[in-house]
């Protein structure tokens, strides 16, 4: 049988799926072991025990000066910025994207502008944000919004434009006004696509968050990583990266779960991501 027709069984799929993770961890542990046996003070590839100890310290021992449990305060600060920024982005995407996709006058007004805004590299706006909004929370949230909202607005506008014309005409013949059309026909149909846009937007959002925190902050996951970099504290950086990855994965999974539950109709046919 040719390779493209050979399908792995359930257990084989699990093994194949786990393989690369196991290989990565094994390679790290071997490398770490070699370096540490040569030099017990090596900081580059800390052992699992060292990383565990460092994280235990950050997660369950209050910091001496502030009394904070740093892992959790960092996580809370970063999540508040990330979720705040993405919520604002999603609202902007709906407010701009739906009229752009549905109403010809709004399309004429918004489409060129949004396209142009999309092309500004968001990071170049960061200094402006710091100057205008100061170094506080606003500029970090704003960076996430500026970085993700235009793309999400375009995605939403495209999703609205992709609704078959038949649906719109059908709505008109059933007596819908423009507002009812948005509320009952357009918005519910694009919500699953908005959720997909949020899931895809979370990637860039993390980058903007970590960048903003690295440059000017007093807390947050990105701040911590860049702070301890000065001391070559790989035993903190590596678990933090794993932790961020885990949070990102969980957010993505929760959004997919929500979409499946709330918009079951959209997941009936085909295979959504």
């Amino acid at each position: 049988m040719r390779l493209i027709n050979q399908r792995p069984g359930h257990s084989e799929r699990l093994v194949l799926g786990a393989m690369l993770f196991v290989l990565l961890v094994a390679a790290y542990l071997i490398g770490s072991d070699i370096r540490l046996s040569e030099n017990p003070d090596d900081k580059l590839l800390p052992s699992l025990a060292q990383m565990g100890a460092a994280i235990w310290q950050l997660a369950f021992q209050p910091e001496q000066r502030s009394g904070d449990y740093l892992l959790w305060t960092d996580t809370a600060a970063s999540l508040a910025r990330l979720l705040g920024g993405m919520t604002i982005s999603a609202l902007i995407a709906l407010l701009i994207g739906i009229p752009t996709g549905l109403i010809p006058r709004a399309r004429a007004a918004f489409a060129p502008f949004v396209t142009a805004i999309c092309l500004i590299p968001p990071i170049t706006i960061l200094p402006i944000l710091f100057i205008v909004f100061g170094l506080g929370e606003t500029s970090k949230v704003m960076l996430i919004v500026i970085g993700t909202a235009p793309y999400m607005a375009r995605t939403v506008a495209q999703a609205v434009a992709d609704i078959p014309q038949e649906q719109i005409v059908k709505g008109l013949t059933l007596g819908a006004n423009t507002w009812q059309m948005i509320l009952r026909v357009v918005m519910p149909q694009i919500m699953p696509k908005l959720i997909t846009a949020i899931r895809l937007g979370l990637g860039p959002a993390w980058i903007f968050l970590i960048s903003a925190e690295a440059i000017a902050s007093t807390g947050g996951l990105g701040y911590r990583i860049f702070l301890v970099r000065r001391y070559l504290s790989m035993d903190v950086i590596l678990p933090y990266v794993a932790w961020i990855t885990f949070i990102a994965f969980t957010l993505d999974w929760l959004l997919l779960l929500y979409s499946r539950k709330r918009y079951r109709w959209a997941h009936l046919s085909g295979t959504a991501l």
Partner: protein
Amino acid sequence: MSYVEARNIWVAYGAVSVLERVSIAVERGTFCTIVGASGCGKSTFLRVLLGQEQATRGAVYVDGQRVPEEPTSECGIVFQRYSVFPHLTVLQNLIIPAEFGAAPVTGRLFGRRYARARNAAMAMLGHIGIAHAADLYPAQLSGGMQQRLAIAQALLKQPKVLLLDEPFGALDPGIRSDMQVLLLSIWRETGMTIFMVTHDIAEAFRLGTRLIVFDKVRHDPQHPTAYGATITYDLRLKNGKALDGIATPHLIETKTAEEERATHVLSLSETSRA
């Protein structure tokens, strides 16, 4: 004045003519079937009746009123695909017309008014034979059931005219004939005026009380899109047979155009020989 009247309609997109000199008067309660080759403007004619597209020249009247420049609930429509809302269950698809009518701001009905709309929807579901599927989404229905739902949804607004654009084009033959029976019984019950585009000539004869054929009668070999299609046959039917085959005057032109083309081709070949 007839119930539905098209007066000398022309439709052109820039230099591309789609319809020309289309005039027809249809009495109330007529089941008018429309056939013709692909791309000859049958669906365009339907969209003009609906108000979705505007005729470049001429005008359409329904019940004495000029058709407005956008679709309204005066005309119901069923398309071949995408006719029902995929995000609503079968029942919700049938409640939403009432909600559009009665709730301009929220788009939703609550309490007693919702219960009344729901009852009407359930009655319609039973009537159309899909009551068992009330809580399913359209994607979970067969093609035939989806079209049943689409027709039921269009009927709820009690439109003056029902337009059907190849509604059974994607269905199996067995299902198709079930749907034809259903449509005929609805038509007899409501006495509604129906325009139905179909590719299936047998279907057109079986269902219609009037059959019109769209075709191009003028051709320009150098510019195939220069002329649009028009009504070339207009037959009154009874029990699937033509009563009085009225060929419109255009039909005579057909011959002349064909002859013209033939002579033109002849003269060309003669020139090339010389």
